[in-house]
């Protein structure tokens, strides 16, 4: 393995993390908070450290599949380890494990918190917490790639490892331009949401932090009741932007290049909106009796459906109090997740589609053993490798889900709590049900369980493979 290449990439990641920390520092300056200086100091340390590491240029930089996966996994770990330090220094989250949990939850856009009273945090830390969502949403390496002339065409392997979805490809011939386009779209959506929220009366600080949480599909709020305290219009705006952030970004690329017809050809997007409409309407009718008007029921239903399926994790109401059918639908939505190529997490609709299409094929093989049938998506045949890796993905996914649930059960909470805690961290959602419901938090788990859940969050965001590969002994063995 090319350790020097990976080291170089990690150095770049640190440099950029240092730059990212300027935002909370500036926020702190505006609000005259002394905590801002800890961010500045840590930021400078990260930047200098990064510069030192990247001082030595890599001679023959080439990123193969393996280097791509390892670099991405390690980058995210390094990012989280350094990102957690300011929380501890400012004393707002005294335990480093808790701070690390909070940071990983931020970068992986999970939004699961260990804080029982969010409102006690300074503006500085709230900004950093939310900003990690924004950075993690589209991916930090994709961000770096759009700035630095990294290493030619093989950087696609970094993008493949970091971007969600079963198959990642370029939008335009150069990887760098592809990364730029993705971030441009991301930035435009972010700005539109901030402006809209401000117009409809949300304070600037709130609209910034909540927008970062929405478009990154993260879910860290700045109030204990998440979004419930805002006006219905603001809630609806957030609903729309959550759902838009869960759409495959290819759709926005088509809008950019004026190929509107192409959007409707993408099966995944059709199914995505279909599921949201179906689940939202059903739940609205199901919870009708709990709220004053049908309109209110619809608002809450669609907000929660949008929040869960895009794996955002905001809440406008305590859905833990909803009827069992509605809760079950939400749990199912957790497992579906957003579209591939979006900022959302979860299993991804495209994978689900591939699997659903493979079932009739397999059944049909029993009836006609010699049948040859090609599975198609968006009118194009799915190649055998994608199908196989999707199957394996499903297997690993459930394996991790079950083992994690087993591991955290040592803390002796009930099944619903444990199961939804794992499901919501593995799928990068945030809240679960019962003990980890929207009004509760993850603070009651032991440090051991927190480590398990941190692993789940990283594994979920990076789509399992990059993180699991770190555990392969043959990777580290020197030949």
């Amino acid at each position, binding site marked *: 393995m090319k350790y020097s290449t990976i080291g170089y990439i990690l150095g770049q990641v640190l440099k950029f993390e240092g730059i990212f920390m300027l935002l909370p520092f500036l926020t702190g300056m505006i609000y005259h908070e002394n905590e801002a200086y800890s961010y500045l100091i840590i930021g400078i340390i990260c930047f200098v450290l990064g510069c030192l590491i990247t001082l030595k240029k890599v001679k023959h930089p080439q990123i193969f599949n393996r280097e791509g996966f390892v670099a991405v996994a390690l980058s995210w770990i390094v990012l989280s380890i350094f990102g957690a330090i300011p929380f501890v220094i400012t004393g707002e989250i005294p335990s480093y494990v808790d701070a690390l949990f909070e940071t990983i939850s931020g970068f992986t856009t999970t939004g699961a918190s260990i804080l029982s009273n969010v409102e006690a945090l300074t503006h500085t830390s709230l900004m950093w917490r939310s900003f990690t969502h924004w950075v993690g949403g589209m991916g930090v390496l994709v961000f770096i790639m759009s700035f630095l002339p990294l290493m030619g065409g*093989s950087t696609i392997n970094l993008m493949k490892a970091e971007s969600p979805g079963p198959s990642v490809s*370029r939008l335009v*011939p*150069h990887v760098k331009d592809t990364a730029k386009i993705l971030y441009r779209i991301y930035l435009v959506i972010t700005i539109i949401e901030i402006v809209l929220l401000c117009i409809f009366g949300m304070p600037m600080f709130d609209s910034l932090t909540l927008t970062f949480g929405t478009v990154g599909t993260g879910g860290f709020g700045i109030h204990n009741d998440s979004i419930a305290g805002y006006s219905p219009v603001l809630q609806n705006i957030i609903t729309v932007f959550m759902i838009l952030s869960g759409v495959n970004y290819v759709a926005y690329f088509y809008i950019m290049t004026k190929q509107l017809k192409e959007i409707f050809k993408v099966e995944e997007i059709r199914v995505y909106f279909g599921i949201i409409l179906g689940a939202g309407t059903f739940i609205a009718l199901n919870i009708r009796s709990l709220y004053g008007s049908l309109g209110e029921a619809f608002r809450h239903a669609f907000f929660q459906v949008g929040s869960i399926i895009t794996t955002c994790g905001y809440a406008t109401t305590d859905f833990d109090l909803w009827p069992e059918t509605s809760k079950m639908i939400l749990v199912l939505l957790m497992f579906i997740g957003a579209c591939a190529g979006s900022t959302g997490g979860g299993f991804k609709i495209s994978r689900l589609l591939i699997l659903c299409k493979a079932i009739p094929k397999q059944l049909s093989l029993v009836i006609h053993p010699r049948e040859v049938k090609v599975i198609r998506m968006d009118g194009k045949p799915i190649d055998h490798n994608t199908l196989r890796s999707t199957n394996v993905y499903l297997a690993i996914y459930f394996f991790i889900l079950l083992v994690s649930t087993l591991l955290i059960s040592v803390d002796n909470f009930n099944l619903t709590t444990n199961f939804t805690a794992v499901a919501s961290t593995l799928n990068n959602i945030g809240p679960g049900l019962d003990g980890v419901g929207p009004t509760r938090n993850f603070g009651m788990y032991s440090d051991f369980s927190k480590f398990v859940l941190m692993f789940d969050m990283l594994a979920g965001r990076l789509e399992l493979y990059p993180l699991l590969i770190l555990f392969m002994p043959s990777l580290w063995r020197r030949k």
Partner: protein
Amino acid sequence: MNIIIVGCGKVGCTLVEALSSENHDIVVIDSRPEKVSALTDTVDVMGIVGNGVSHTTLKQAGIETADLLIAVTGSDEENLLCCVIAKKSGHCQTIARIRNPIYNEEKDFLQKEFGLSMIINPELTAANEIAKVFQFPSAIRVDTFAKGRVELLHFKIGSNSPLCGLKLSKFHATLHCNDILVCTIARNSEEVIIPNGDFEFAANDIVSIVAKRRDAIDFFRKIGLEKNRVSNTIIAGGGKISYYLAKSLLMSGIKTTIIEINQQRCEFLSEQLPKATILCGDATDKELLSEECIEKAAGFAALTDLDEENILLSLYANGISSAKTVTKVNRINFTSVINKLDLGSIIYPRVITAEYIIKYVRSMNNSLNSNVEALYKLEDGKAEVLEFLLKENSAVCNIPLQNLKIRKNTLICCIYRNHQVIVPSGQDCMMPGDSVMIATSGYNISDIKEILED
């Protein structure tokens, strides 16, 4: 530039790798997903899996905004069709690889009617490259430009050459070579001169001339430079390259023997190349080779289908004779090992094909956004050859060249009319529809009229 490359075979890959480092936006199309993903994983290009002939696929690849499409799939028909469709759906230039000799005969027709910018035949190109090795002595370097139509021959003037001290105005009369055009002279490895009548040749000048091959050989004999040109060659293997090579060698009067194992192929070759000696036998048969006096051969080309056989044959030939040897190698991955062997000249047909296309792409890139059709840099960029297509009624048309007042350091070095290269003399004139190559140094010419003195 936006370039679409259809076909990710070996030529396709070589092209992509070379072009991607020159900052072009490249999209590759191939129907084999594994070929496409192998490329997109290592090179910064976008890949599309699909049939390059299909309009939908081409549209997906952005044919509307493409500047150039290069069709290098394995099938000639597919390549042609692909180019035609691309031409109809966008404004791009097209390059097709055509290797069937039958189509090759009709190259000019195809190129004109289908609007192709360039047709490349890998075997023919390789054969020409090999022919250069045999036809021109080592004192001469050959550059081709203008899509391979024009050859620029460079040579150094020796101290006892008849050219020493000769004025250019007396050049043609003294040497009786009217069809030779002196193009550039590099002196002291610094300045590049585009000469006029008063120019005087001196020893150690590096002169480049434009001429037809036969005239050039005649000219080199007159100035005493033909010494190490080979007189007879043996070609092992009778494939397409051998056919083209033998044809070209025979034309310039070099005796050629081809050894081919397949009886039918031998009969075909003998039919097509009546002047050549065709032997039916195994080229790796030592007896046969000594029967044909390989020790006394002046040139030997190993062109069988197997790289290993070619390498062995050349090593053997080098060992027992002083022949100039040329070895054809198909596989390009092991260049470093092969270069260590004492093989003489090595020809990689695929690389040559790719290089020709790359040359074209570069010249196209250089001439983007101007009236210039193509721009070639000579002598490390110290001189340029520009290609212009003459439109109707240009101010320079229909006037004999000797009556045109042309700028200093500017020269009309060839006229391409009706698929014929004309080496211009004072009586010739340019006509609408001609392609004209202008050599110049020190000026920035962007229109044909600018060659005239102000």
